[in-house]
């Protein structure tokens, strides 16, 4: 097992190196000049050249890339072009907000989708099944910014139960954090729940028709026991992958929702960095997201083995 993890970690390092190269090259292709954006509309050739050379953007591309990778190996992801702050600090500062939002959202999604998906499958064709399908259709087709605004207008405006936007750190004030995280997490959670519900429903349906389930029923086991012990565990394997992928993409920051709710996470950071063409910050954010994806994948593989003894990691 430990050898497996070590090998995966080495592979991950190679992937990350590839990510830096691809991102670096892609950024060169994106139109838009960071120096021009930093100076705004008031453009003066001398000021422009001075800023360009201060930012090191006048060096040859290869030099820029090699010095970036060299520094990155020591944990130094460079300095933000706009704020002059170290990118490592900026990105890590935003991580807690995004982590707490993503985990809450996935928790909400699983709490809704798991019972709903299983019940819809077990009572296939019932009114509940139809309701679950309508719900998931609604969730995937309604844009999240619209859902977010409606949530704000209802829960912050009309009812006055929750603050409309903003962020409080979990470590500073857990109750304040909870009241601020609920609306954005529910907005994301409902969308994710819709995706998961469909997935869980079809996965459970598939397992329900499997031979071992018929055997279990033939043994005279009660319906609930069959579902919990024989169906769910088998049905969950693909579901875990989907949950993990969803979580990983949420950890990359939910740009629209973070911007709407003024949530200081990775998504908002990425959005601002794109607008400003702040290459170092953008590279740092992408690198972090890539690393999170790799870690999530590794965790999923390990989890597979736990769920299904037939799968062995090597």
């Amino acid at each position, binding site marked *: 097992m430990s050898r497996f993890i070590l090998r995966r970690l080495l592979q991950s390092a190679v992937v990350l190196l590839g990510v830096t190269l691809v991102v670096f090259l892609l950024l060169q292709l994106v139109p*838009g000049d960071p120096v021009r954006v930093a*100076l705004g509309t008031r453009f*003066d050739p001398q000021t422009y050249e001075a800023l360009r050379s201060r930012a090191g953007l006048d060096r040859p591309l290869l030099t820029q890339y090699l010095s970036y990778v060299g520094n990155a190996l020591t944990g130094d992801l460079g300095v933000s072009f706009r*704020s002059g702050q170290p990118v490592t600090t900026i990105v890590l*500062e935003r991580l807690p907000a995004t982590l707490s939002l993503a985990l809450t959202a996935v928790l909400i999604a699983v709490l809704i989708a798991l019972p709903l998906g299983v019940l819809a499958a077990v009572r296939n064709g019932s009114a509940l099944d139809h309701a679950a399908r309508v719900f998931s259709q609604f969730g995937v087709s309604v844009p999240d910014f619209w859902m977010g605004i409606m949530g704000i207008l209802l829960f*912050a405006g009309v009812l006055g139960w929750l603050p409309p936007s903003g962020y409080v750190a*979990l470590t500073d004030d857990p109750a304040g954090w909870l009241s601020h995280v609920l609306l954005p997490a529910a907005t994301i959670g409902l969308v994710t729940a819709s995706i998961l519900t469909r997935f869980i429903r079809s996965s459970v349906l598939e397992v329900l028709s499997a031979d071992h389930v018929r055997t279990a029923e033939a043994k005279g086991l009660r319906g609930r026991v069959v579902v919990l012990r024989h169906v769910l565990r088998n049905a969950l394997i693909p579901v875990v992958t989907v949950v993990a992928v969803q979580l990983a993409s949420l950890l990359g920051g939910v740009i629209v929702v973070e911007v709407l709710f003024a949530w200081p996470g990775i998504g908002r950071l990425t959005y601002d960095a794109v*607008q400003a063409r702040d290459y170092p910050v953008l590279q740092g954010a992408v690198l972090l997201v890539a690393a999170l994806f790799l870690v999530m994948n590794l965790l999923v593989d390990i989890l597979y083995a*736990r769920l299904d003894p037939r799968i062995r990691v090597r």
Partner: protein
Amino acid sequence: MSNFGSRLAGATLAVVLVAAGGCSAGKGVDVDGGGATGGAGGVLTAAIGGEPDQLDPHKTSAYYSFQVLENVYDTLVEPDENLEMKPALATEWKTSDDQLTWTFTLREGVKFSDGSPLTSQDVKYSFDRIVGEKLNNAYRFASVKSVAAPDPKTVVVTLSAPTPNLLANLGGFKGVAIVQKANIESGAVKTKPVGSGPFAVSAYTSGDSVKLVRNDNYWGDKPKLDGVTFTFVKDPTVALQNLRGGEVQWTDNLPPQQVPSLKDGGDLEVQTTPSSDYWYLTLNQARKPYSDVNVRRAVAFALDPAAITKAAKFGLATTNQTAIPKGSAWYYEYAPYRHDPAQAKQLLGQAGVTGLTMELMVTSEYPETVSAAQVIAAQLKEVGITVRIRTLDFAQWLDEQGKGNFDAFMLGWLGNIDPDEFYYAQHHSGGTFNFQKYRNPAVDKLLDQARTETDQAARKQAYDQVAKQVVDDASYIYLYNPDVVQGWSKKVTGYQARTDRAIRFRDVALAK
């Protein structure tokens, strides 16, 4: 199942712990004041539309930064509510007979917020830094030969040519603020700037807020508030909801379509004030057929500025065919164009232009240009010009503008005070912002003269002539001066919306 459950719970807990660890390692965790320090003033929370890129006043160009910095820094002189330059750090100034030497006397006993004294050396350091490092506002010092500090209270500015608008250049906004050398050299200025203004930055949490506390070393009347917190709320509907719910007490990010009803409604104070900004359409004179003045004038006659203003600003603007708004001492009343498609077609005929397709470049950064473009396209279609709208993000937009890759674009100029700022860089053939490549020797000569003309009446006359010529030549087709729109809670007193969009909280009080 139970095995799986506990594993999952364990994994989740581990990630949460990582998150919590990251939290406590993060900086800028500051307990919101809320009057706990004993002052009667309380903390005002202001929602602004975006995040400052950095807080070094000489290096940022973002309005979001200046909304904060307006309350942190001082300038030598500063504009009052009519944009007349008034004493700030300098209490008086003398000009030599040849107009080439300006001697400023600094206020007695001014300190930075950390308690260290602010002297003429700091003024010299600040100005030398902007010029020497070629920072954003270096162009404002084009005629400044040297800055000297003969004694702690005296600053002498020596010029290469008379500069009647020197005060506006040296004090028009906080981009030319007086900074502290130690704060700059340590690099702390980017997130924790030290100024001499009414408030001082106490915490900057990236992505979330900038917190200011009252500067007890401030030279002016002590601010009534204990502090000001700026939060960054991009969505105007959300900002309005925050204002209604009492989470914030001030915002300038209101949904424009709701402003008329908010002004009538009872629970909020919403003010609209004409600004000194202007928005315009311009045609690339380096390209045919826009090099022909008849084509440019045809476009001007084809447009209906009233309809454009309505679409772009929901009526929160005043149409104006010149740059400088009514109400300014430099306003020149001149409006030769009217919505007249027949006249436009005739001018196009004279120029021999038929079936013209024009690319109009607008940017999503300023949504009003995107809405206005639709109306402009419809109006130009009436006279046979097909408009292809190119909506770009701002970075790309600026790139294309700089390279001259456009037929036409719409944008605005913000925060100008002196007529030189309105016209020189935009319409002088050597002007750095003359992207439309306008060239008129008569205008060049007038602009050069007016720049150094010290007689106010003669100067005004020169700029009137410039305004007339620029409008007649349609170098810019001016559209409107937008309103400044700001809203605040009824608990806020002593706040005034300003035409230059400077956000000053120094005299504001907050009722409990």
